[in-house]
Every structure is written in C-alpha cells, then in structure tokens.
C-alpha cells in the first residue's frame, strides 16, 4: 500500500473516531467522562490528522528538518487551542 493510501485510511479512521467521540458526548452515550477530556482527545486527533497530511500528502516526510519544524509549530498551536478550549470549558 502506498503512503497516500495508508494516510487516507488513517485520516478516515481518525475523523470517524473524533465524530463518534463528539456524538457520544452530545447523545449522552458516555456520561462518566468529563467533556473537557473528550474535547482534548478530539483536538489531539485533529493534530494527528494535520501531521498525516503534512507528512504523507505534502511529502514533508522527505524533508526531515521541515517536518520537525512544522510538527513542533503545529504541536504548540494545538496546545494553544487546547488551553483556550479548556479555559472555556472549566469556567462556571
């Protein structure tokens, strides 16, 4: 299986996982898990998907220095989004 097809499979699987997580929270399928934790998991999945597209489709896997740079910047950005999300979720 070529890298693009493998990435496509993972992107579909991770998108389904994040949608299922969000749906399970809104439909009350999971009640014992804090919404903030579910949100954090959804953001982590988004970060993984973004890295997959950068590495497999935009071929940063062929450019290790840029892969590291983009990966680090994306991780910092995901942390910013997570912090903003958690700040809004934990407020009374």
């Amino acid at each position, binding site marked *: 299986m*070529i890298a*693009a*097809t493998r*990435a*496509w499979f993972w*992107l*579909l699987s991770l*998108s389904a996982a*994040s*949608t299922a*997580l*969000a*749906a399970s*929270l*809104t439909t009350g399928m999971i009640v014992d898990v804090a*919404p903030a934790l579910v*949100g954090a998991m*959804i*953001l982590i*999945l*988004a970060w993984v*998907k*973004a890295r997959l*597209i*950068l590495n*497999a*489709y*935009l*071929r*940063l896997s*062929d*450019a*290790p*220095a*840029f892969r590291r740079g983009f990966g680090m910047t994306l991780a910092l*950005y995901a942390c*910013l*989004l997570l912090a*903003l*999300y958690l*700040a*809004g*979720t934990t*407020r009374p």
Partner: protein
Amino acid sequence: MSAPDTESVFDELPGDLMIWVLIVSELLVFGAGLAAFLGVRLTDPAAFAAAQDHLHRSAAGVNTVVLVTSGWLAALGARAVNLGSIAQGRRLLAGAAALGVVFLAVKWAEYADKAAQGIGVETHPFFTFYYLITGFHAAHVAAGIVVLALVAIRARPQEVEAGTAFWHMVDLVWVLVFPVIYLLR
C-alpha cells in the same frame, strides 16, 4: 571561475518554495481565525454550545470524508503524472475536483438550511465566526477546483505538484476547522 554550488535547506522542501510560502500564509490566517473563535468562546461558552447545536455535524462529517478522499485522489493523480501516466493522472485529478464540487454542494445545503432558520452572520458571534471561517474555506475549495482543473489540462509534473499542494492545504485547514467549529463543546 564558477561559483561553488551552495546547498540551501530550502532545497529539501518538496515542490516550489512559493507554494510553501502560500501554504504557511494560509495556515496562519486560518490558525488565527480558529484561535480567535475559541478566544471569543471564553466570553460565553454556554451560548456557543447552544449555537453549535444548530449545525449539522453529520453533514460536516460527510464533507470531511469527501475532502479527505479528494486529497487522496489528488495525491494519486500527482503520483501518476509524475510517473508519466498522464491520462490516469488527469482522471484522478478530475475525480478530486469533482469531490470538491460535492463538498461545496453540501456546504451550500448547510448554508441554505441556516438561512431558512433565520440564522445569519449577525445572529450570534458564534455564527459570525462560523460563516467567516467556513465561508473563507469554501472560497479556497472553489479556487482549488479551478487550480486542479488547470493543472490537469496541462499535466506537467511540477505544476501538478504545486496545484495538488494547494489542495492538500485546503484539506489540512478543514481537518482543523471541522473539530473546532463543529465538534468541540
């Protein structure tokens, strides 16, 4: 006397440097928009969650599958053109562009539904960001469809690589927009 060959770190980048400048610029714009959205959400998380309930998560989920699959076809198309299979490459790029049209059709239905409910840009700050971010993204999808069509017609490897890189950027932005706007509560 000839100048010695100097290797630049930018030589490592796949494709043209200018397309990466464009990709980084676009990611910064959308990144700032999504961060601003979550920043404004801090003022009233409950109202943002209530507003989000008016969105069609399933339609957005379908659109995610459509766009991710379109990106896959574009990647396969670029690979085919690079290997000299021009006809196959064109077919795959046309498939990618066609799925882009499907994405826009679903988006159009989504906007029409909001309009029927009387929801507009000024209904709530949530919808201001919703229309701004998803509308700007849809404009990029429309531009990307034109770009894919143009590079498919000419079918030159370097141009196809640049065109599909733009399309993957549109894909990349969507995988960040989808969870932040539609899924996070």
